[in-house]
């Protein structure tokens, strides 16, 4: 009789009745074969593995993270709310200590959704991990959180949401942006002036195999985590680094994913991408679940696995080592970089253009952040989308200092209502959201 070495919670929400469109990679059957494999293995019968029903997130939950334009109702479906609710249910189970760790196997995914969301980009409409993280911070008072995004695509949405937040360490491992959507996530992208170094981007060359992947985990991610000392580790567990994935060019395996999970020891894993639904997902998900539960996963090997064929080239290994060294050096300099980033009290401006590939929206953003040594700094975002709305949004971070709270309210009060379709205020210390 199998017994988990540590209690593991699972939310399984395959949303069998929801798709972006019938042949889209993000479609009904995506988790079908995973469900078949997991059911056939009898996973839910293992003593110590507990299946939870997904929750459903409210608009209030979303408003801790996003500015949905024009509103939450318009850009989400029930499926998005339940998917995010799946992550929330796991967070509850873990933080109420019903389980040691948990895995939300949910869809649709979320890590390409940024703080401002005008619609779908990279198959994502709302950021399910970020909503979970902000829920955890509000509900359980946890301060330091690390998010390790192992999806093959740069987790640009999560990166954007925590860009200015020194209390959330965001690390993304992904295929080099020069060869892959969304084209960002280079080592120099380290976060805003108040949070330099709390965003680490580790691009990997196409053809990276299990060896290269685990090298980065051992030589960069784990030491950084050791130093950051998070209260909670979240893994955005995308599964598209797999050697059979149709959208990417990596050589990762189910064994590799399971080992990564064993090394990383995430408190919560949330499924992100992964579109090799027959060849990879059933095995990768099984491997991750067994690893979380502390069970033997050595038998979880893809039927067509061939280690020899998946070996990475020497030049790939070299590139990975160089990138790791570079990122490590940034991490060591982070305090210095923050000092140099600007004078406290100043406003720093950033202009951005964001394309929403899923919904064909083009957005221009002007973001102002108050440089601050005491908190993440308040933010004002002027965002104009075509097609779509023109809006102004003010974000006051959860651990904001008195000055940043005041500055944030000043942004909001001074905003000229006649110039914008909507003006929003996200006051995290008060857990409130105001629209004028």
């Amino acid at each position: 009789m199998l017994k988990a070495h540590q209690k593991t919670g699972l939310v399984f929400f395959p949303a069998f009745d929801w798709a972006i469109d019938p042949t889209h990679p993000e479609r009904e059957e995506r988790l079908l074969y995973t469900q078949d494999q997991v059911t056939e293995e009898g996973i839910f019968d293992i003593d110590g593995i507990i299946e939870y029903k997904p929750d459903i997130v409210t608009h209030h939950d979303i408003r801790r993270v996003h500015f949905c334009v024009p509103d939450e109702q318009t850009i989400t479906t029930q499926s998005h709310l339940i998917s995010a609710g799946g992550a929330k249910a796991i967070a509850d189970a873990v933080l109420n200590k019903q389980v040691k760790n948990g895995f939300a196997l949910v869809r649709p995914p979320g890590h390409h959704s940024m703080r401002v969301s005008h619609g779908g980009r990279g198959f994502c409409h709302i950021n399910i991990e970020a909503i979970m993280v902000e829920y955890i911070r509000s509900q359980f008072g946890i301060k330091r959180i690390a998010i390790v995004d192992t999806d093959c695509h740069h987790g640009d949405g999560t990166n954007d949401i925590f860009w200015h937040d020194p209390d959330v360490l965001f690390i993304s491992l992904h295929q080099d942006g020069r060869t892959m959507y969304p084209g960002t996530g280079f080592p120099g992208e380290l976060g805003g002036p108040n949070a330099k170094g709390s965003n680490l981007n580790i691009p990997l060359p196409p053809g990276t195999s299990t060896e290269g992947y685990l090298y980065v985990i051992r030589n960069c991610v784990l030491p950084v985590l050791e130093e950051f000392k998070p209260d909670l580790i979240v893994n955005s567990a995308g599964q598209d680094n797999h050697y059979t994935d149709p959208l990417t060019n990596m050589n990762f395996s189910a064994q590799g994913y399971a080992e990564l999970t064993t090394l990383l020891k995430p408190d919560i894993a949330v499924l992100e991408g992964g579109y090799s639904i027959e060849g990879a997902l059933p095995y990768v998900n099984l491997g991750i679940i067994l690893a979380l539960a502390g069970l033997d996963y050595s038998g979880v090997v893809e039927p067509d696995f061939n280690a020899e064929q998946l070996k990475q080239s020497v030049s790939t290994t070299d590139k990975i080592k160089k990138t790791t060294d570079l990122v490590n050096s940034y991490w060591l300099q982070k305090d210095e970089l923050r000092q140099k980033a600007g004078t406290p009290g100043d406003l720093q401006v950033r202009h951005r253009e964001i394309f929403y590939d899923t919904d064909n929206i083009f957005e221009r953003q002007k973001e102002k952040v108050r440089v601050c040594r005491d908190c993440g700094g308040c933010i004002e975002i002027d965002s104009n989308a075509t097609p779509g709305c023109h809006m102004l949004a003010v974000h006051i971070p959860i651990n904001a200092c008195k000055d940043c709270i005041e500055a944030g309210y000043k942004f909001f009060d001074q905003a000229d209502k006649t110039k914008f379709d909507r003006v929003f205020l996200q006051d995290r210390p008060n857990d409130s959201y105001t629209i004028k």
Partner: protein
Amino acid sequence: MIIGIDVGGTHTDAVLLSSNGIEKKIKVSTDSADLFHTILSSFTQLLDNIDPKKIQRVVISTTLTTNAIVQKNMDPVGMIVSAGPGIDPKEFRTGKHYYCVSGSINHRGIEKASVNKMEIEDIAKELKQAGIEYVGVVSKFCVRNPNHEILIKRILNKYVKKVFMGHHVSGNLNFPRRIVTTHLNAAVFSLHKSFFEAVQQSLSEMGLTIPIQILKADGGTMSLASSMVFPGQTVLSGPAASIMGAIPYAPKKKDAIVLDIGGTTTDISFLVDKTPLLEPMGIQRGRYKSLIRSLRTDSKGIGGDSTVRVKDKELMIGPDRQGPAMAFGGPEPTPTDALVVLGLMPEGHQENARKGIHRIALELGLTDLEAADQIFKKCCTVILKKTFEMIDKLNSQPVYTVHEFLEGYKISPRIILLLGGPAPYFAKKIEALYQIKAVAVPEYSVANAIGAALARTTCEVSVNADTEQGIVTAHEENFAEPISKTYSDDDLIETAYTLLKEKAVNSGADPDNLDEVEVVEFQKFNIVRNFSPRGKILRTKMQLKPGLIKGFEKVLH
């Protein structure tokens, strides 16, 4: 006329029914060392002065296989399993003769590694040498493709008496449970066979030659012949009999709790709109998890004859039973004695009951009446607590689609139906304690036997169509047919209905009484390769719902 017999752990209940009502009812103690004798004497009593030719139907529910499992009194059998990628199949070892062999089939039913015939041949010889006569064969994903099981069986046939295959057990996925279930069928086969052949023989000597029906855990019946293929399905038919016996008294369009208070345990179950709830996967009791289709029941180790004792100033009831209540000559005080002391139950020896309860009262520092009342109250609260836990669990069951999530039905029973000897007393007490309507069903002491007598045949089929591979299959029924790309939802339903009907009639159902068909599950998925649709996967499960046969409504009111 029809006969229903429910052999329980403590008592055996039997009824003879005609369309006019109950003709005869009997209750005798079960002799668990000789169930055969218990059954025969029940028949002898029922058929006394009755012409056996008038009996049209006989349904039997027994604890034969349940006892065999509990007492670990099963035949040693061989198990051959082939797994492929995943959890190490050695974790699911069933006993000494357990072999993990090569061969692998994936989740789509596609062969990934072949069977090694030499390996099987060698195992077969070993089994024969060890004197093993029955063997179970299970391969992972055999419900998608049973070819490996069939191939292994062919090799084994020359060496052993009978081979049981995993894909015949259920259309549901769950490899570890399939191993347990296949093993169970193989391990109780000879016991079940010899027992019921003896029963049939004796009944025909009494002039009763009509085919016997056996009650299953899902509250339906199967013919004796089908029971030989799946003897494991008779496990836990007792609680099923009780639920079936409560159906007539359950409210329409509402939820009800059913409590059967027996000698040693109380069985707890639920009815939604007069229909019993089924276990989603199969019977599970503690660590024992199977694919045997079953009604959703659980039991608590508290019954009328449970031993009452005081431990660290705390009142303890059950889970053991040392014999009948002291009021009926037993050795230890029991809840039944409490009922006698409280003056609720007129039967039994007053003085003996009081002696037992007095002992408890002394230890607790209470009067006899106070102690008796506390025992009674504790029984009710423990049973109800378990019941409410079950309801919470039912209502937090995971769902897999947005639609199910939004439609999520929550059960909230407003009535409790009670069966078993002390049912009326418990009903009154529970109503007073919990302000929830509680009633003892008419004929509460033999309602389980009535349930067995009137249960109709049930069965389920699982059908999968894969238009990319061009095949529709129901491996459990040995069915596979080619299909075209245009095979539709309606085609699948039609195929499933035809198979279900055939299966029902073969299991002894009345062909004119097949209207309670229900589609339990229907799923449809596109198969997409390189962004273009290549076909569809269609899956359905269809069942003949558990329920009561027609024509005996008068019996019940």
